[in-house]
């Protein structure tokens, strides 16, 4: 039992389909009510898609798992209605310190750029995020049917639907769905049921997580030690979470006995060595883990789509697990909606694998590199690692080589088939395939933010002369025209600067707020061609 958090227990309710023995075809079933599955359900509801979520448990995440949430997932959660609660409950931080042996090697500041609604990074225990998402889902009972104690035990794939056997306390019954989103975690059963490959690199190392409650006056910073005197030849991490809970992470090596290591009589001396004998603390949670960096061979198996840890598993260094999982959903839902409505060809769904597998590979690369630095695999890599750390104390040049985790940033889909390649010259980073950066705007005399004012459909964001139109349409797909200076004003000048809009610019922005195309001048024919391309119709 935790002292700072009481796990909610959600009621199991027997569904009408099970009670009556009827098989009703559902548009979408989400498997797994974790951060990713709940976000998927909320995003489906936002797009008007009715969804059933099945979870084999009846509460939120046990223990503290994900900790750090980056700007981009917070922006996505802002659209789903929980970002304010996350930010309010979470701990914002910017400073990180890296120690080598007894000395400070260097410190960094995330130096968040001004003029963004969301902070660069917050820390919060995963169960809070899930609880906020469950509460939000309960506001949409018209579209979201959240079913606890429903375990998928087998499935059969057909051309246009999936049939699944679901086990509840009342026995086994059959469900059907047009589409399934599998968010059932790193040990995904659905992934096994479709016999997908899930391969990559395993690391022969173990890490001990201890969440402790303490009212210590350590600053709200991320402290990372390489080879500290209190834990020789290993690494250690100290990071603050909400409710005066601190996350401590100790590298333990491969030979440690995992059962013995988590016993209080072994954990407490380790923590005392780190925090000092005088620091009072209480143990909140202890567990030991080993990790792998791997991904599924295809994010799509027919009409089953994989997201989050079910699709990719990374090391915890760099906070890339949950952060990238939320972005899977953001990429998927609008595509699914257009395909389900018949507004875009089914091939649009292929771009989900194309774009998110590309992002997963980028995350896996970053995560593997951090792991290689933190747990060197050979004597020579250990020597180079120590050389970098020693040099970084004295010389600025070595600091970019220190890798205690590269913090999660959205991966630009630079090679995506949905992008229209630039034909005009632009400064700045808002190229096709990039996520839109936020900026302060004024709408009808009220301060607001760009991202909150982009359409849920496509947006044509115009700097300069606008055509006398309110939208561009291709079949049922529409791009709402938003003109800077008309629908929204750029009083701070940040929007124009960030989008290189001073000379006039037109951005075609996808429903997930990624740039699909950009030009210097409006051209209806080119806009429609880019809209077709961005929806898989080329």
């Amino acid at each position, binding site marked *: 039992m935790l002292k700072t958090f009481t796990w909610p227990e959600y009621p199991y309710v027997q569904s009408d389909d099970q009670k009556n023995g009827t098989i009703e075809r559902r548009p979408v079933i989400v498997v797994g009510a974790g951060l990713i599955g709940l976000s998927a359900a909320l995003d489906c509801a936002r797009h008007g898609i009715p969804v059933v979520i099945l979870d084999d448990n009846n509460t939120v995440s046990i223990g503290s798992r994900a900790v750090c949430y980056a700007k981009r997932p917070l922006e996505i959660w802002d659209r789903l209605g929980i970002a304010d609660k996350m930010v309010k409950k979470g701990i914002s931080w910017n400073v990180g310190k890296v120690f080598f042996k007894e000395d400070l090697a260097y410190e960094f500041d995330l130096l968040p750029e001004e003029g963004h609604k969301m902070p660069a990074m917050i820390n919060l225990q995963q169960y809070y995020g899930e609880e906020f998402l469950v509460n939000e889902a309960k506001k949409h009972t018209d579209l979201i049917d959240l079913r606890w104690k429903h375990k998928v035990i087998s499935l059969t794939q057909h051309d246009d639907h999936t049939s699944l056997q679901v086990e509840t306390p009342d026995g086994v019954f059959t469900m059907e769905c047009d589409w399934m989103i599998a968010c059932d975690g790193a040990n995904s059963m659905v992934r096994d049921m479709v016999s997908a490959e899930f391969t990559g690199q395993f690391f022969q190392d173990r890490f001990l997580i201890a969440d402790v409650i303490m009212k210590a006056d350590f600053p709200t910073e991320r402290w990372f030690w390489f080879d500290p005197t209190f834990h020789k030849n290993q690494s250690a991490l100290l990071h603050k979470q909400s409710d005066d809970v601190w996350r401590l992470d100790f590298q333990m090596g491969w030979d440690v006995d995992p059962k013995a290591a988590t016993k209080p009589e072994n954990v407490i001396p380790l923590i005392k060595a780190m925090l000092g004998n005088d620091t009072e603390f209480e143990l909140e949670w202890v567990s030991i883990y080993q990790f792998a960096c791997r991904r599924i061979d295809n994010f799509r198996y027919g009409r089953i789509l994989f997201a989050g840890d079910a699709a990719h598993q990374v090391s915890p260094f760099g906070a890339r697990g949950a952060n990238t999982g939320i972005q899977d959903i953001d990429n998927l839902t609008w595509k699914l909606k257009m395909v389900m409505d018949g507004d875009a060809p089914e091939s649009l769904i292929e771009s989900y694998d194309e774009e998110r597998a590309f992002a997963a590979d980028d995350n896996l690369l970053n995560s593997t590199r951090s792991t290689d630095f933190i747990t060197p695999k050979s004597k020579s890599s250990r*020597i180079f690692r*120590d*050389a970098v750390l020693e040099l970084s104390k004295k010389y600025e040049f*070595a600091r970019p080589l220190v890798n205690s985790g590269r913090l999660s940033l959205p991966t630009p889909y630079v090679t995506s088939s949905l992008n229209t390649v630039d034909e005009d010259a632009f400064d700045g980073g808002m190229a096709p395939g990039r996520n839109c950066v936020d900026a302060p705007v004024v709408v009808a005399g009220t301060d607001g933010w760009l991202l909150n004012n982009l359409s849920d459909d496509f947006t044509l964001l115009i700097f300069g002369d606008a055509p006398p139109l309110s939208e561009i349409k291709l079949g049922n797909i529409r791009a709402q025209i938003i003109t800077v200076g008309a629908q929204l004003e750029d009083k701070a000048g940040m929007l124009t600067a960030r989008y290189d809009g001073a000379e006039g610019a037109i951005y075609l922005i996808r429903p997930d707020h990624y740039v699909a195309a950009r030009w210097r001048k409006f051209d209806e024919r080119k806009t429609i061609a880019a809209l077709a391309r961005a929806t898989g119709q080329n």
Partner: protein
Amino acid sequence: MALNLTRNIDRPDDFYQELLDMQRDMEEDDVQLMNAKLILILSNHIGDHDILSEAMRRAKE
């Protein structure tokens, strides 16, 4: 610019002796650490990724 593989070191005998003298009384582990630091310092001085890649390839030949 390509990797320079023609003679470029001033007073080669003096340089070589200086390197060996400096490591003469060091423990093997310290020598390896010093060599690693030296590679990193020189790599930063060069900076150019293509040149560094070519140098690494040539060294491994």
